[in-house]
């Protein structure tokens, strides 16, 4: 017996029934992108009785959350990989092909294999593309010498190998872009865990963290942790002190700023980003490269019938995180179900929580609650914020444990 039917029997409570009406075919929704956002949306839409096709080019998903731990040798790569069998088992049609074209008037998606899928509504969860036109010298070929590792996979393993092979007393340069970008605290967690590796395996080595901005997520928490744990390993260079990278030379392993040239043994360059390419193909990305959306339905402000969730969306105060993408996917799915049934969607409230590790067993967090206000997703005043700056080590340990348990739970919910 299904969970739903048990719930019906147990409570007899009123339930909102989505389409379809029993006699007619279910409305068709195509979801493009099988990450935390798209896979969650596919499940929720399918749970709402719709005919769902999930289009994802890769047959294995590699999770970015916890990939910094892989880089630092604290987590095996196998723990980052997820297949789509769980979604298929739940009854969702999963098509492994690249989406190459979208005809919003005909409501049709074209795939790389030449086939097409029509839809009543389309959900895009395309994640990010890295901008190889933003930093002179940092093109698609440069990533083999200077990995970004900002899309988890081979790049993650490459950076891990480079760090392990780096000589004693070497220099790591880590470059961080300006806002907005995927996972705002992620570069600082990466810096922390690389500094941990240096401290424990190459104590004379050093990490230079070049930042294209002066303030960042969980800043006080990270900086107090760095001061305590990595006083000689980690040097932070904010924008005001010349932290913006102006060019790189991958052959010479030089990272340039307006103030200095840094010679690196290992260089991790996280470049500026934009919404995944299919967003531009669909016409839902604006000049910023990201996708403006309605904060209640996540429907594109530019193209009707197409919804955008996750990192690609301009979600106001909500950060680009896996937790956000998952929350947005559920809200978007409910809105799609309502719109297809001719009902007005409910006004949502969304939650985000992001954990970061400053060291193994040393976790910190930021949380927020968001609601539509003034046409965007705004912070609910009085809610949210970061872990206490003066917290005990017991709380830091607890938050590290919560981080690991969150990862295990959400990946099971989404892909399991």
């Amino acid at each position, binding site marked *: 017996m299904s*969970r*739903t*039917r*048990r*719930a*019906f*029997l*147990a409570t*007899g*409570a009123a*339930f*909102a*029934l*989505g389409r379809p009406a*029993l006699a007619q075919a279910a409305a068709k929704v195509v979801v493009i992108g099988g990450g935390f956002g798209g896979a969650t949306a596919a*499940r929720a839409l*399918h*749970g*709402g*009785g719709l005919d769902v096709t999930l289009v994802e080019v890769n047959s294995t998903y590699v999770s970015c959350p916890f990939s910094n731990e892989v880089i630092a040798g604290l987590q095996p790569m196998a723990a980052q990989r997820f297949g789509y069998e*769980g979604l298929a*088992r*739940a*009854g969702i049609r999963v098509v492994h092909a690249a989406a190459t074209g979208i005809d919003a008037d005909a409501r049709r998606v074209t795939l790389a294999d030449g086939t097409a899928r029509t839809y009543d509504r389309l959900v895009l969860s395309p994640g990010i593309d890295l901008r190889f036109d933003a930093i002179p010298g940092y093109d698609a070929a440069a990533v083999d010498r200077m990995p970004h590792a900002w899309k988890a996979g081979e790049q993650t393993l490459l950076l891990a190998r480079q760090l392990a092979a780096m000589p004693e007393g070497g220099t790591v340069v880590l470059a961080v872009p300006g806002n907005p970008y995927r996972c705002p605290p992620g570069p600082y967690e990466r810096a922390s865990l690389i500094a941990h590796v240096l401290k424990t395996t190459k104590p004379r080595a050093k990490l230079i963290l070049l930042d294209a901005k002066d303030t960042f997520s969980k800043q006080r928490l990270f900086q107090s942790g760095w001061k305590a744990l990595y006083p000689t390993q980690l040097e932070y260079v904010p924008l005001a002190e010349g932290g913006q990278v102006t060019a790189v030379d991958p052959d010479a392993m030089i990272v340039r700023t307006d103030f200095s040239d840094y010679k690196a043994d290992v260089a991790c360059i996280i470049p500026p980003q934009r919404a995944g390419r299919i967003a531009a193909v669909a016409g839902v990305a604006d000049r910023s490269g990201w996708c403006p959306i309605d904060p209640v339905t996540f429907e594109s402000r530019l193209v009707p019938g197409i919804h955008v969730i996750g990192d690609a969306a301009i979600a106001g105060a909500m950060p680009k995180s896996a*937790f956000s993408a*998952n*929350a947005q996917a*559920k*809200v978007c799915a409910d809105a799609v*179900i309502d719109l297809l049934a001719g009902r007005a969607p*409910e*006004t*949502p*409230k*969304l*939650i985000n*929580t992001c954990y970061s590790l400053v060291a193994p067993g040393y976790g910190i*967090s930021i*949380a*927020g*609650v968001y*609601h539509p206000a003034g046409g965007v997703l705004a912070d*609910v005043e*009085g*809610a*949210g*914020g970061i*872990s206490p700056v003066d917290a005990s080590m017991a*709380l830091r340990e*607890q938050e590290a*444990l*919560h981080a690991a*348990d*969150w990862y*295990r*739970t*959400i990946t*099971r*919910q989404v892909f*399991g």
Partner: protein
Amino acid sequence: MRPAVLAAWLLAGSVGMVLARERPPPGASSCAECHAEGAAMGAIDGRPEAEIAAALAEYRSGVRPASVMSRIARGFSEEESRAIAAYLSRQRPAAPETSQERP
């Protein structure tokens, strides 16, 4: 059981279609991404409504110590929190190894 619900259930049973899940109130759909059997945060699906409502009220007022829950609970009014508690109390706990039952 209300007649409409009963009818939907009978029809669903007879044609084997997927019925819509209960629609969570605002905010409630994110709880299960952390709260699960075997996780440090603990499962809350199916717990008594009064217990969840009291916990949310105490997180909101700051009486109960917390890591993130005090920061999250302050984003919801008492009425919203009660709706979340009522919804969660009606959910069945997920099995430890898989979030969805297999056919």
